[in-house]
């Protein structure tokens, strides 16, 4: 069986892109990708299939045909993937599986979301339409409940949680595509407006539009496009529910543990081998818990892990050099694809001001809420140069 390799990536700057249509976003990421391929690409001839990640929050119509129209890539199978906030990652995983299976030689993976067209709908839906179980639970509440419990159970401090946001905003100022380009202090985070106690405004990712694309191909074709392909060493995807009566689930994300175990096993790498990681930090507490779920530190020790500066850009294991969702933004369908694109750049030494020196193994992690279950889906990919 062939390996799958990433051989190109394209992105539009994340941000408030109200003036951009959905097609503009897709076109932008796609053209940036086409121009990024080292040895060039003839897209209509070379691309065999398309996987399109979007939750379609802006209600633009559910079909892979949206990419066909936006890019001009007709007469090819184009599939829309929807898998909560892990939508982009799952689009990538499906393309990787098709390439590895030998059914497809060159796949375009593209993710896009217009979040700002329908913000009220998203919050209103979460709060009102789930009376049967959720009883007015919003996203910050779901994650905030884990923060409360983590602080109680492991003496994690509010300041340690805030440090995640400080770190990621600092990284974001150095990453050209980030939505929010400002630095903040622990005090700034603690003094920002309360959204859902114990989480404040700067603990939450912004509402962001964006799109991102990567090109995936097999062993044989990879050298046609670049001398420096990035191999997909392993992947894992899992589902879970907050409502399983699992005590531990109040302080971790079981699906992340399962997905990362699968990815580690498939790749032959473990958490100690990871040189750089892009992880899901929709809220500051999410990243803290993810350190533990991915095995970067023991359960309950995430607070000390960040206190010691380990996940900082100049630390032993840099996490979210791109600024993460907290600074870069979280256009749902694009998020996982953008994380892959960042790891791709890191492993090729193309990451500019946020480059981690000599990164050889990179990890990407993306979780989502489904049906009122925090971290109900989780995807982990391990890549190597």
């Amino acid at each position, binding site marked *: 069986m062939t390996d799958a390799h990433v051989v190109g990536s394209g992105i539009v700057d994340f941000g408030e892109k109200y003036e951009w249509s959905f097609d503009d976003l897709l076109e932008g990421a796609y053209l940036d990708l086409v121009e990024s391929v080292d040895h060039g690409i003839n897209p209509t001839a070379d691309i065999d299939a398309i996987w399109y990640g979007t939750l379609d929050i802006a209600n633009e119509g559910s079909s892979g045909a949206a990419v066909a129209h936006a890019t001009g890539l007709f007469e090819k199978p184009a599939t829309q993937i929807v898998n909560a906030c892990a939508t982009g990652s799952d689009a990538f995983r499906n393309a990787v599986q098709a390439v590895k299976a030998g059914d497809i030689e060159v796949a375009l993976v593209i993710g896009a979301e217009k979040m700002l067209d329908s913000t009220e709908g998203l*919050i209103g839906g979460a709060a*009102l339409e789930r009376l*049967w179980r959720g009883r*007015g639970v919003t996203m910050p509440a779901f994650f905030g*409940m884990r*923060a409360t*419990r983590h602080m109680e159970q492991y003496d994690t401090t509010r300041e340690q949680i805030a440090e995640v946001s400080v770190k990621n905003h600092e990284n974001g100022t150095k990453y050209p595509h980030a939505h929010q380009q400002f630095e903040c202090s622990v005090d700034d985070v603690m003094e920002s407006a309360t959204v859902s106690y114990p989480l404040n405004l700067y603990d939450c990712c912004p509402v962001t539009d964006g799109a991102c694309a990567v090109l995936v191909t097999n062993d044989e074709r990879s050298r046609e496009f670049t001398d420096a392909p990035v191999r997909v060493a392993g992947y894992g995807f899992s589902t879970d*529910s907050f409502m399983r009566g699992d005590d531990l689930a109040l302080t971790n994300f079981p699906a992340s543990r399962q997905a990362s175990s699968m990815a580690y096993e498939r790749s032959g790498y473990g958490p100690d081998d990871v040189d750089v990681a892009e992880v899901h930090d929709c809220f500051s507490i999410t990243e803290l818990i993810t350190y533990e779920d991915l095995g970067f530190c023991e359960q309950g020790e995430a607070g000390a892990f960040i206190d010691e500066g380990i996940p900082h850009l100049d630390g032993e294991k840099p996490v979210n050099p791109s600024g993460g969702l907290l600074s870069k933004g979280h256009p749902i369908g694009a998020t996982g694809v953008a994380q892959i694109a960042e790891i791709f750049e890191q492993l090729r030494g193309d990451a500019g001001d946020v480059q981690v020196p000599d990164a050889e193994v990179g990890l990407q992690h993306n979780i989502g809420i489904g049906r009122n279950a925090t971290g109900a889906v989780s995807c982990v990919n391990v890549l190597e140069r």
Partner: protein
Amino acid sequence: MSGPRYNRTRRQDQRLVAFECQSCDYVSFPDEKRTCKRCGDAPATFEEVQLAERGEIQTFVVQEYLPDDIEVPQPLAIVDLPQADGSGESARVYGLLTETELEELSVGTEVVARFRELFDDGERPINSFKFSVPREVKR
């Protein structure tokens, strides 16, 4: 918010009726389905159990930003409600709280389920339980 969705679990919501999986002892609330959401038993055998009105907060938040229809601040907790007869496992339940100060809340706080109007659906009230901190527990 829709009527049918609410009505599907109305009896459970209003009477605190839960369902115990006979394979793994998981107590499901308010769902009674044909598969178990913990052990995956399919088909599962559930037995109805009555939950106690009094339970313990496992974790909580206080929501400050919500749609206009919902009052803020809105405290919300995950509460373990034991079975009324003291047997078996507790049910893990999401619930809004009645007027409660942040200072009154902590992991481990005892709360009691009270029947209240949750939301106004425009034309009709949606009733279910909310949790409150009992007077004797209030500091």
